[in-house]
């Protein structure tokens, strides 16, 4: 089992003819992802590396039955790409694009009110289910193995580090989801946790948070009332307040968003929090043994 994506997922790629979209479509297919369509306005009717092209998401969905979208569209046009997929009723949209203006995402959030579409990201590495052979996004193919650990992360590279460490330790994964480093994202920690909670195959979930916002605190509140097994990790313990640390969402404002506050909230909810990345593996093993 897994969450959100599996072997039945039919993926369309928005921005498939761009440099990133083109490269990562090839990588996704190598992983085993069923990429059924590409969308680039003005290039409909053609093909891109064997994938049929469409002018619009609606056309692609009608012709191919695509039920998930991967967005590799440049920042100025990415919000529109998300809303196009929402309008076409695509159930799952994963937006990889980094650098979307925040107000564009406020508009997207408004547009999505009442919609059934789930958005992952933006500014995220996407979602991967190794057992179902479905990868949407940019996670490196060779890191994964099949198993019982779920992973949620705001950071791309830390996702890779932890998946790599898990695989080396013989701990395979159900699904790994990169939720994104922006201040406004479609799927927050707590949303992903709820999905893993319902997945019978996922026995332990690793949750990688970072400074900025209060999504980890919200997750802690949820976990306080849940029986699911989670190992936490928070990066940015030494980040200065008021500075944007790479991710647009990684900024401490006043007294909110600090690593200390997030760690305290998780620990209060009974979630073990690793002090270093290296400590994550033994904590996962401990949780599995309990």
């Amino acid at each position, binding site marked *: 089992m897994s969450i959100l994506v599996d072997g039945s997922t039919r993926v369309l790629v928005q921005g498939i003819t761009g440099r990133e979209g083109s490269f990562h479509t090839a990588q996704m297919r190598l992983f085993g992802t069923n990429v059924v369509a590409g969308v680039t306005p003005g290039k409909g009717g053609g093909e891109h590396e064997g994938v049929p092209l469409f002018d619009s998401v609606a056309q692609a969905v009608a012709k191919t039955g695509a039920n998930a979208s991967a967005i590799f569209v440049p*920042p100025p046009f990415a919000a529109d790409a998300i809303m196009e997929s929402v309008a076409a009723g695509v159930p799952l949209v994963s937006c990889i694009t980094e650098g979307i203006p925040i107000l564009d995402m*406020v508009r997207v959030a408004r547009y999505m009110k009442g919609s059934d579409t789930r958005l992952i990201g933006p500014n995220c590495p996407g979602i991967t289910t190794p057992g179902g052979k479905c990868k949407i996004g940019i996670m*490196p193919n060779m890191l994964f193995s099949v198993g019982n650990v779920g992973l949620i992360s705001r950071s791309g590279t830390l996702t890779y580090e932890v998946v790599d460490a898990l695989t080396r330790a013989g701990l395979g994964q159900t699904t790994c989801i990169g939720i994104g480093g922006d201040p406004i994202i479609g799927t927050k920690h707590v949303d992903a946790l709820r999905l893993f909670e319902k997945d019978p195959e996922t026995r332990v979930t690793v949750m990688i948070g970072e*400074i900025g916002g209060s999504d980890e605190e919200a997750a802690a509140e949820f976990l306080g009332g849940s029986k699911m097994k989670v190992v936490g990790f928070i990066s940015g313990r030494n980040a200065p307040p008021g500075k944007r*640390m790479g991710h*647009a969402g990684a900024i401490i404002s*006043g007294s909110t968003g600090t690593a200390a506050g997030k760690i305290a909230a998780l620990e209060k909810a009974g979630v073990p929090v690793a002090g270093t990345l290296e400590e994550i593996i033994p904590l996962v093993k401990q949780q599995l043994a309990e």
Partner: protein
Amino acid sequence: MKLYEYQAKEVFASYSLPVPRGRAAETEDEVEGVAREIGGRVVIKAQVHVGGRGKAGGVKLADTPQAAREIGKQMLGMSLKGFIVKRVLVEQALPIEKEYYLSFTLDRDAQQIIGICSAMGGVDIEEVAESHPDKIMRMPVDIAFGPLDFQVRDFIAAAGLEASKSREIAGVIKKLYEVYVSTDASLAEVNPLVVTADGQVVVADAKFDIDDNALFRQKKLEVYKDASEEDELEAEAHRRGLTYVHLGGAIGMIGNGAGLCMNTLDIINQAGGKPANFLDIGGGARADVVRNALDMVLLDPAVKAILVNIFGGITRGDEVAKGILEATSTLDVGVPIIVRMAGTEADAGLKLLEGSKLIPAATAPEAARKAVELARAA
């Protein structure tokens, strides 16, 4: 991008928000000139990005142009909480009757814009939030409609702002929202919003932050980009297009990915060191990017050792190693460089580094320990 008060007021004025008459000055001559132009009592305000300027001596009144000149002389070049004052804002002094707080910002949790106001203005809003949370009013704004008239009326009434001035205040609220949305701001704050003895509603002080992601479509604000940089090294990094934050320690840090970089700073601290900077070279870094990054870190004279932390995903370790070798062969590197590499083709990358001056490390904590040791020995 954080704008200075004088820049914020220039932008606010262009949206017809009521700001006091005044201008920025960089020399005592200019201070005297602007004071003469304005006439009467003026206020001279240091233009630095720190809170509590008044208490630190960064806000002073002058009754004559000569007195303004004297104050300008003292203030320009002085250090205010560690920041050198390069500019002051000289403007008409206001006969203050009431001071309010007003802002628009992003409510991350609700994923919408929120207006905040309070009758307790002129002090740090975070302090008010602590001591008098009931005195802070919030107005969630639907971006499809903007603040609605009835919302604004309720907002003003609930906060207990001067009822006889509610129309003028409502005008300020609506215009401030317009500025916020049109300029892609992440914060537009007026503190205090003043009601003067003669009944004027005036933006007396302003904080204004613009979303960096939106600068590509805010061409008008580009003129403020360079002048808004407080830190010389950060200004240089931004000119080079690098994601860099100056942190002041001795260990230079280069990594790929924001999360990995933040975590590397934590590891350096855990090893007993202090990072000199945050520098994220992002995914798929090529030799020229690595070179640019190394060169940037070396500009900081406090750097005694450099830690390069790379996790190869799509990026291959051997390619990164080639980039580092190429960069170090053309740059004059006087400090040790410790490289931790893992992930795709990491072994091949580390093999390439054998025989070079670069110091390999198997794990990030080990790399940090080495960097801290070598920086201490330097």
